[in-house]
């Protein structure tokens, strides 16, 4: 700590910390303001609660990408896959909770299975009626996939653009697989029509507030995990790998092991984000695996400032705020704006929005 702070004057750090906690406080007020009567000037609509809750989960995804890309130089263009897998795990739980309230009224089978003529639940759906198991799987499955893919890729020293293409192919392949009806994940339509979670009806202010605060706590927790890593010696090993991987190997570090460690943590965080995202938006379908989503998430990080944890969070919120506004104001322009933003940031703001405010804060 003392070593890294030596290059950073104390005052911007303190200011930054204050601004961060201020932002968290403002966010935390949103569900409370939602409770005020609609006549009140401070009233915040349901839409705002849901959409900021969604952005919080995006910010967790951005942190995950930043840890892999900004710190370690692993540019994954398939992080959306880990996010979606976490989402699907939570979606399976929500589907099981619908129970006999589905359109077909079957006691255990979700509607799409009745429709497709499944005689019983496939084995991999067992256990998802239990909330802790679903939560575990939401983290475990993305982590396991990252472990396998990362092991194969890093051991074979696949880096740079090849790794990016590989991860993009991975998410594309998963998208095609999840589109198939016989995968047992609802095919094209995915999962929706959720009713309740942990005994709360999902369309109530209480459920919205609980999910919102759960996401906020998860964001703070993820930020803490990433900070712990970045200020430790491991964080400096990551920067060294990003800048000169083979040199790190000659120092005796197994860069394969270190990258795998970070990639798995990153995937687990992405899975956590996905699991919190699905109950808030009320739907998960194979579109979440689309490579475009992963690329968009990378752009959030680039815009905010990669290699800074604050940057990832700022990027996720600002780009999504812009998206929400622009897709309403001028829907046809959004993709051009996104592409233009990426080009502009690359050319003029290589350190992202955060780089505008402080040249010194880097860790």
């Amino acid at each position, binding site marked *: 700590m003392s070593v890294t702070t030596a290059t950073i004057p104390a005052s911007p750090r303190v200011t930054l910390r204050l601004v961060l906690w201020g932002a968290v406080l403002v966010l935390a007020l949103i569900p409370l303001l939602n409770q005020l009567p609609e006549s009140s000037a401070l009233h915040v609509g349901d839409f705002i609660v849901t959409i900021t809750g969604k952005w919080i989960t995006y910010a967790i995804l951005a942190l995950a990408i930043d840890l892999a890309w900004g710190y370690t130089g692993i540019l994954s263009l398939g992080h959306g896959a880990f996010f979606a897998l976490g989402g699907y795990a939570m979606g399976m739980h929500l589907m099981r909770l619908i129970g006999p309230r589905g359109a077909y009224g079957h006691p255990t089978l979700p509607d799409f299975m009745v429709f497709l003529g499944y005689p019983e639940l496939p084995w991999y759906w067992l256990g998802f009626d239990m909330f802790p198991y679903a939560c575990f799987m939401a983290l475990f499955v993305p982590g396991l996939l990252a472990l396998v893919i990362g092991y194969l890729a890093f051991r074979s020293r696949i880096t740079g653009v090849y790794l990016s293409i590989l991860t993009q192919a991975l998410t594309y392949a998963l998208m095609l697989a999840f589109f198939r009806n016989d995968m047992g994940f609802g095919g094209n339509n995915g999962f929706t029509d959720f009713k309740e979670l942990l005994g709360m009806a999902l369309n109530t202010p209480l459920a919205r507030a609980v999910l919102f605060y759960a996401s906020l706590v998860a964001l703070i927790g993820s930020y803490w995990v990433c900070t712990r890593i970045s200020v430790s*010696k491991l964080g400096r090993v990551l*920067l060294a790998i990003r800048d000169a991987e*083979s040199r790190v*190997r000659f120092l005796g*570090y*197994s860069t394969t092991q270190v990258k795998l460690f970070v990639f798995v943590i990153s995937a687990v965080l992405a899975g956590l984000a996905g699991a919190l995202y699905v109950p808030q938006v009320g739907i998960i379908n194979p579109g979440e695996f689309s490579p475009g989503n992963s690329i968009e998430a990378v752009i959030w990080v680039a815009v905010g400032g990669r290699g800074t944890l604050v940057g990832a969070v700022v990027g996720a919120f600002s780009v999504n705020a812009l998206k929400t506004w622009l897709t309403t104001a001028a829907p046809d322009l959004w993709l051009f704006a996104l592409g233009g933003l990426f080009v502009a940031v690359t050319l003029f703001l290589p350190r992202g929005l955060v780089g505008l405010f402080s040249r010194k804060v880097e860790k």
Partner: protein
Amino acid sequence: MTSHTILYLDDVSVVFDGFRALNNLSLFVDQGELRAIIGPNGAGKTTMMDVITGKTRPSAGTVKFRDADLTLLDEAAIATMGIGRKFQKPTVFDALTVFENLELALKAPRGPWACLRWVLAGESRAAIDRTMEEIGLTARAHDRAAILSHGQRQWLEIGMLLMQDPELLLVDEPVAGMTDQETEHTAALLRRIAGTRSVVVVEHDLEFVRALDCKVTVLCEGSVLSEGTIDQVQNDPKVVEVYLGR
């Protein structure tokens, strides 16, 4: 192979697309020995370093460090066993400070968990301070490596090598781009290090090799052309012909 031999290369060949970068090369380095390797461009000096450190696999031959077969190990494992390497082009980590560069190189557990839980203890800090003193970078401790001069980067890399506490140091062109004074200082440092550790220096600068005052091996076209003191090899007609030129 005597019991004092620490590095043992026997009949090593490396073939790249039909080009024999190393051609039945045999070389033995003793414990505590300082050895200089010279040779014209393309003689196989860097390839030899690559083979020893696990970057390149030999097509044939034996490479041993003590009793370990280096051809079976990867770079990280070889480095952990006690072979340190300084590259021709100084490669330090620009995003990190001088202190942090040395801290990364410091001999300590290398796993991700160990790094995450790493706490800089007093004796480690003292070791880093000693090394900074030795390489003359104490005043730059908290400057990022990106802003160091070329000579300082060379020194930092030598410092990182020392922090690894290796038994065998491979040093590729340590004085390239250094001033005369820096060159002298480097020769003295390497002589001091040898004795407790083995040092293999690859260098073009014959004055520097003379200052090292050690056994010299001349490589040419991937094999050993001549071996002996600097005066012996400089007077060897074969060496005169291919290397020093006429």
